[in-house]
């Protein structure tokens, strides 16, 4: 699924990385626990999270993840966005909850990873 389509489905604000909205993804993983993200996620997965601190970006960086969707209307501070920008990530923000956002994307064919 293209990031552009995801952004539309979840009525997202694009915080950074507009130029990568044509990137195609097959998998997503939702968690507020970065420990679990580090333990389970493989590359090229979209991260869906309600955490908005530096460590979300660092976690994504270590795993080579390039797209993060912040849920529940949470938005990171400018320095967190800048860090994501340094690593050419796309950050999206939606008002939907983790459950609803995940449900919408899953019903449209974006798969979950197996752990």
């Amino acid at each position: 699924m293209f990031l552009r389509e995801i952004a539309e489905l979840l009525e997202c604000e694009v915080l950074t990385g507009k130029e990568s909205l044509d990137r195609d993804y097959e998998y997503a993983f939702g968690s507020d626990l970065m420990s679990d993200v580090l333990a389970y996620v493989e590359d090229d997965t979209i991260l869906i999270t309600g955490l908005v601190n530096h460590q979300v970006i660092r976690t994504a960086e270590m795993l080579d993840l390039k797209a993060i969707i912040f849920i529940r209307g949470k938005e990171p501070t400018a320095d967190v966005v800048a860090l994501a920008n340094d690593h050419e990530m796309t950050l999206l923000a939606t008002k939907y909850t983790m459950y609803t956002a995940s449900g919408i994307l899953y019903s449209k064919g974006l798969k979950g990873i197996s752990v």
Partner: protein
Amino acid sequence: MQESMKYEFSVPTMDFTVAGEASSSIKKVLRQLGIDSGIIRRVAIATYEAEINIAIHSNGGKITCLISPEWVKVIAKDNGPGIENIELAMTKGFSTATSEIRELGFGAGMGLPNMKKCSDDFEITSEVDVFTQLVMTLYL
């Protein structure tokens, strides 16, 4: 002994805006050296978990990365409370992290098992009230 390159970074305690910088720098160096991306990823995850652990659980420490033509070695050593029961600490899901740490997204008790999973060789030594040291080796 074969020649290796050495990079050293200090890791402060409880500073979560800088935590991850050492791992990020090491990842950059490995990429510049043209090392296999799968190995870089495993080194990055293991180093980052170790860096977060130093920030969370110790009074600060340092991360040293040694790179030879045949292996990458990451040594994470902290000054701190040490680990009383290493076997228990290595158990998935066991954690002594506070609720503040959990709010940052860590403290799920996955760190040490994940570091071991990412490494080819994993050694942990600790002395209560003195230090904990992890040596993680990945063969190229």
